């Protein structure tokens, strides 16, 4: 085969700025490089001196797509530092808010970013003509995710209601009933999503690696739990520095991470690999139909893992609303007593394990902050996957190989401005 010289500046249809370089000469790989060029914003510096009631407002701005995750990780870090345990109602509402974010984020990726590749298009905009039904189905589901965040959080991007130890505004009984109805009505669209993705041919590629996520004995973990690795088993949240081992590489403004191997993976597939048994029934059924079962080492199956989780979250949303309606919404006193100390918050953002670690001074202002972002933890694995994917596909021409590499990166649903923060 002749020369391959792929240089994609600013990969499209994903959040943030990353470049891809692949050089092959006479069947020999000369270079494969995943490069992050996003401008860093320095959130850990911005957080210095911030008062406790502003911290979650500021860190929300780390990411437009997973602002809820950043708010919750930050609220948990502040609550842990102050020794606050939020009420059961607050935890349920946070879980419901999360249902909205996971649905919106997964559907945005599946329909707007990934689907055009499977249908040979450059964007969802051009698919509006050729595949209108599929695009409108995606738009309806995406709107549902946003609707949940609007009802529970106040708005879809950077919600205002969540606060330390509670919510500044509660949804009404009627709001929750409407939401429940919308979730029920979405089930046929979710079935269509399963059928749609069942019809897409995912590139066949597998590479053994480590998968890390939260896990919780009573639930499919999203907003609480401890760490679990498919290689090394359980670990507590405060052991995160020994899990992530972040390091800098000159060609990336985002840090890379590694645990016991050269790299590891977080996100939907990692959660499925660790917590499959705790999925709700319809989600499990969809997983079986789509051929997803643990342990799965196929990165393209992260798309399928997102389909399965979207269904799980819709079922979860209905259960949570039933529980909230049974108990009845109560106005709760939000009390916060400030003290010096350190707190760590950990959640599963749609793209994986997210940790905020805050140290507060006596007056309740942040002295030191550290944020460990999901996509940082995937960058090294994306690099190793790309190397192996290229070496397995040297028979392809340049255009085919470029598309394959782009699809692999997109399968991780990277959130790059997040990872550079």
């Amino acid at each position, binding site marked *: 085969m002749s020369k391959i010289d792929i240089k994609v500046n*600013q990969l*499209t*249809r*994903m*959040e*943030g*700025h990353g470049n891809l370089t692949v050089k092959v000469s006479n069947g020999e790989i000369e270079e494969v490089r995943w490069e992050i060029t996003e*401008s*860093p*914003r*320095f959130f*850990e*510096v*911005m957080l210095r*001196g*911030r*008062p406790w009631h*502003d911290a979650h*407002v*500021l860190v929300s*701005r*780390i*990411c*437009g*797509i997973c*602002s809820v995750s950043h708010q919750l990780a930050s609220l948990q870090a502040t609550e842990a530092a102050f020794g606050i345990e939020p009420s059961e109602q607050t935890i349920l509402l946070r879980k419901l808010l999360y249902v909205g974010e996971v649905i919106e984020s997964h559907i*945005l990726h599946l329909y*707007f*970013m990934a689907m*055009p590749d499977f249908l040979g298009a*450059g*964007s*969802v*905009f*051009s698919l*509006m003509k050729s595949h209108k039904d599929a695009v409108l189905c995606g*738009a*309806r589901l*995406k*709107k549902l995710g*946003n609707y949940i965040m609007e009802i529970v*959080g*106040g*708005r*879809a*991007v*950077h*919600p*205002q*209601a969540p*606060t330390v130890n509670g*919510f*500044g*505004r509660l949804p009404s009984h009627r709001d929750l009933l409407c939401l429940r109805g919308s979730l029920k009505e979405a089930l046929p669209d979710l079935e269509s999503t399963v059928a749609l993705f069942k019809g897409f041919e995912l590139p066949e590629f597998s590479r053994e690696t480590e998968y890390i996520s939260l896990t919780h004995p009573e639930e499919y973990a999203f907003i609480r739990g401890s760490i679990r690795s498919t290689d090394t088993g359980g670990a507590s949240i405060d052991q995160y520095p020994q899990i992530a081992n972040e390091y*800098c590489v*000159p060609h990336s*403004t985002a840090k890379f991470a590694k645990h016991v191997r050269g790299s590891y993976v977080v996100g939907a597939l990692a959660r499925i690999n660790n917590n499959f048994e705790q999925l709700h029934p319809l989600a499990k059924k969809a997983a079986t139909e789509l051929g997803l079962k643990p342990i799965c080492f196929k990165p393209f199956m992260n798309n399928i893992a997102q389909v399965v989780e979207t269904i799980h979250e819709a079922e979860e949303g209905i259960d949570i609303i039933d529980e909230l309606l049974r108990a009845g919404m109560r106005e709760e006193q939000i009390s916060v007593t400030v003290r010096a100390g350190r707190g760590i918050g950990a959640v599963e953002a749609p793209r994986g394990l997210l940790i905020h670690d805050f140290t507060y001074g006596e007056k309740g202002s942040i002295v030191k902050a550290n944020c460990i972002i999901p996509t940082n933890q995937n960058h090294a694995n994306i690099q190793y996957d790309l190397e192996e994917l290229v070496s397995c596909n040297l028979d392809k021409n340049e255009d085919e190989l470029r598309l394959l590499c782009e699809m692999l990166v997109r399968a991780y649903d990277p959130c790059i*401005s*997040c990872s550079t923060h």
Partner: protein
Amino acid sequence: MRPKVGVFDFTCCQGCELQILNCEEEMPDLIAALDIVAFREAMTERGNYYDIAFIDGACSRESEIVSLKEIRKKAKIVIPIGACACLGGVNCLKNAYPMDEVLKAEYGEAASYYDTIPARPISAVIPIDFYIPGCPIVKEEFIRVVQELLAAKVPYQPNDPVCAECKAGGNVCVFDKGMTCLGPVTRGGCKATCVTGGAVCWGCRGLIDEPNIHAEKEILESAGLSMEDITKRFNLFNVCQEGVWK
């Protein structure tokens, strides 16, 4: 002829671009009315000429200055969207420190690999024609501005404070609930969404023209805030308007 539209992103969370994609119901009409030729977050194709360029994000690197000048050359109308693009937004909080210290704090010994400059709004780099404020932008406001541009009008820029919309919306004043707020001096047009949503106004849409800063400071001081607290409150989004509020 549908106008050719480009959407670009710089130093930001890309939440304002997401707000455009969040116009789910309006999307068929938007696609019918606009010829979207560049939108990296959502499409692979990229055109080279724009009737309207929407810009998300602040400028915080030399390389971004170069890209912004390129866009300005290729675009008839340039419109920054969101607090980062319009004000510099939260990105400007780092400007309080020397840039080498900022780089070292984040990257340690590897700091020399990377570069950054004090964050600034788009208008500090290239001439702009209009702006859509907010963190994030309000979907309805984006649609309205597009409609006005399609009708060849100069879009309307609200200049009433958030406070006026908040009162009209029937919210209980947050000062009466023992909290503090930038609503009296912040540009409205958001229907006081943050107060309605259970929080306070953080000033993300920037200051109104000729704000009564003196009175706002007095209210904040009488609510128990020190000058340091007041500074922290203003500079969450408004470091670049320091000359007005300090």
